[in-house]
């Protein structure tokens, strides 16, 4: 079928992307990333098994509407703290992005962290990058079947354990584990375990870099927080260009006469190579650079004119998103630092100083100066610190006695022999882990007394109790609406009080 007039053929734009086979790498940043994997996943897999005060240390008990996080208990009315926490998380993301780029993506994002583990498993069964590519091209044999099957089995087991752990944050995990083999899980427990396990398996095993490129909103807007002083991972084209293989005897440009290229020539070289990579399809290029016709790039007619990049392409091979960092900053770059480690290793072998690809800023790479304290860093930082202070103060000064008052919806007041009565429903929450004796009293209006509950009453530990209450004023003492305060006092701890404003209605004064 021919495409409608004026449209571009489907295939011409949506070329199916090849699979990325990240090459394994070792170095400082790889060690940091491994440490982050152990730390973060360690917390995830371990926390549900810890106990605190006889209950699970971290438990989000949705059916009971209580969140337990170590010594802290959060109730639904503490939602403000969750909201504040989310705002702080957002601000922290802005702050660290402005300061140091995509630290989150490279080291802390669950997508990165779980993908790393799934890659380790893949390597264990299928070998290094070269072996994996060969295995995928090879025809199906028993050996390939066993290697692939082993990997998938390990992936599924790991994902299933992940799903189980996830549900263990919402249902006590020991009890959940005990019910596993007797098949006594509820429908929603099973559903979420399978759902989360499936999502982990799909995202970390198969989608991988696609999640960052097509699903993640942060990848799209992080650029807005960047400026020319933000820490980025960049290739130094002034030092690297013109790139090319060489005999080993040539020293680094930093140690020979040629020195760094002028900025314009280095940028021309980058634009030329970006365009060329796009034509050849050797790496993914989505920068605007690739749309330009190739400008004149500096060429090395003699080995002495070569820059330090030997064009070994190892920086591309290690990249989990399959880009060429030498084409400049791209939104696909998750700032994992793998290309830095790879390039440093090559520089070491050549006897060149490290840092052809390095953590730097746009200003520095162009030969300028950079500064850390910019207005946006200061503003984000100040906001973040003050919110954190507010939050901590609030959390540790929460009242552990709560009172909500609902007026009776049916009647404003009731006339009885004894006087004018108003009815209310009290919602009393006791956050203590022990029962407490409470008494209700009225303030703010002369002559209003508590009829019900007249006696002191008990509210159990960690409970919300609904209680009817009745107030009375003698006939003729009050007219119209009165603002009053209901006060709840703990008899054993008089300093614990909860106060709520409400209204008391009485008949209007008769016209004279």
């Amino acid at each position, binding site marked *: *079928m021919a*495409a*409608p007039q*004026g*449209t*571009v*053929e*489907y295939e*011409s*734009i*949506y070329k199916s992307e090849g699979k990325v086979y990240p090459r394994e790498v070792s170095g400082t940043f790889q060690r940091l990333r491994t440490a982050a994997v152990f730390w973060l996943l360690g917390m995830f897999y371990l926390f549900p098994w810890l106990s605190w005060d006889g209950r699970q240390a971290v438990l989000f008990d*949705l*059916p009971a*509407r209580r969140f337990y996080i170590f010594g802290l208990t959060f109730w*639904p009315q503490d*939602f403000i703290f*969750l*909201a504040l926490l989310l705002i702080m998380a957002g601000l922290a993301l802005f702050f660290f992005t402005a300061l140091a780029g995509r630290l989150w993506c490279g080291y802390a994002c669950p997508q990165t962290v779980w993908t790393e583990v799934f890659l380790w498993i893949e390597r264990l069964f299928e070998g290094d990058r070269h072996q994996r590519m060969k295995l995928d091209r090879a025809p199906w044999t028993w050996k390939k079947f066993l290697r692939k099957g082993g990997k998938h089995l390990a992936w599924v087991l790991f994902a299933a354990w992940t799903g189980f752990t996830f549900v263990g944050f919402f249902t006590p995990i020991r009890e959940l584990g005990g019910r596993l083999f007797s098949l006594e899980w*509820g429908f*929603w427990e099973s559903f979420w375990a399978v759902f989360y396990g499936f999502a982990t398996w799909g995202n970390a095993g198969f989608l991988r870099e696609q999640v960052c490129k*097509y*699903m993640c*909103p942060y990848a799209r807007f992080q650029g807005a927080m960047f400026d020319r002083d933000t820490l980025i991972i960049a290739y130094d084209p002034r030092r690297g260009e013109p790139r090319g293989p060489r005999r080993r005897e040539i020293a680094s440009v930093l140690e020979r006469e040629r020195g760094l290229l002028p900025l314009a020539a280095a940028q021309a070289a980058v634009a030329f190579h970006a365009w060329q990579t796009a034509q050849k399809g050797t790496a993914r290029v989505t920068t605007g650079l690739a749309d330009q016709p190739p400008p004149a790039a500096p060429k090395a007619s003699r080995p002495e004119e070569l820059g330090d990049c030997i064009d070994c392409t190892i920086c591309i091979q290690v990249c989990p998103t399959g880009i060429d960092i030498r084409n400049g900053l791209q939104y696909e770059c998750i700032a994992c630092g793998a290309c830095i480690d790879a390039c440093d290793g090559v520089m070491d072998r050549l006897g060149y100083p490290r840092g052809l690809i390095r953590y730097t800023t746009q200003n520095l790479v162009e030969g300028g100066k950079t500064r850390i304290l910019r207005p946006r860093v200061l503003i984000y930082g100040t906001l973040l610190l003050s919110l954190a202070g507010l939050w901590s103060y609030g959390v540790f000064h929460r009242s552990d006695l709560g009172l909500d008052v609902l007026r009776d919806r049916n009647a404003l007041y009731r006339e009885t022999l004894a006087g004018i009565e108003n009815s209310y429903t009290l919602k009393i929450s006791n956050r203590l882990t022990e029962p407490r004796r409470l008494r209700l009293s009225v303030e703010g209006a002369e002559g209003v007394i508590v009829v019900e509950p007249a006696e002191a009453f008990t509210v159990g530990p960690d409970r919300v109790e609904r209680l009817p209450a009745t107030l009375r004023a003698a006939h003729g003492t009050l007219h119209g609406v009165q603002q009053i305060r209901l006060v709840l006092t703990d008899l054993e701890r008089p300093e614990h009080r909860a106060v709520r404003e409400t209204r008391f209605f009485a008949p209007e004064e008769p016209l004279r």
Partner: protein
Amino acid sequence: MSDFDHPPRPLVQRLGAILWPSFFAAGVASMVFFAAIDPAELAEISALPYWPESRELGYTLGFLLFWTATAASSTFTWILLRPASRFNRRPG
């Protein structure tokens, strides 16, 4: 005005672009809504006679309702952004 007409996107991309952001938005909305309102109390409201009494079912139903609304909105956006050529396509 450019006469470039973007080619149709693959079905997976279309579905993903509608379902994924709406899933995310529905998750946030459910969290805010159920932090303020106990699903068990919704069952007591006479205007919602069929609301389930169990909290787990209440959370689930609430989330699915939010997701329906957000996905409908995403779908509407997608329909509005479709170029005219999709509607004026010649038969065959």
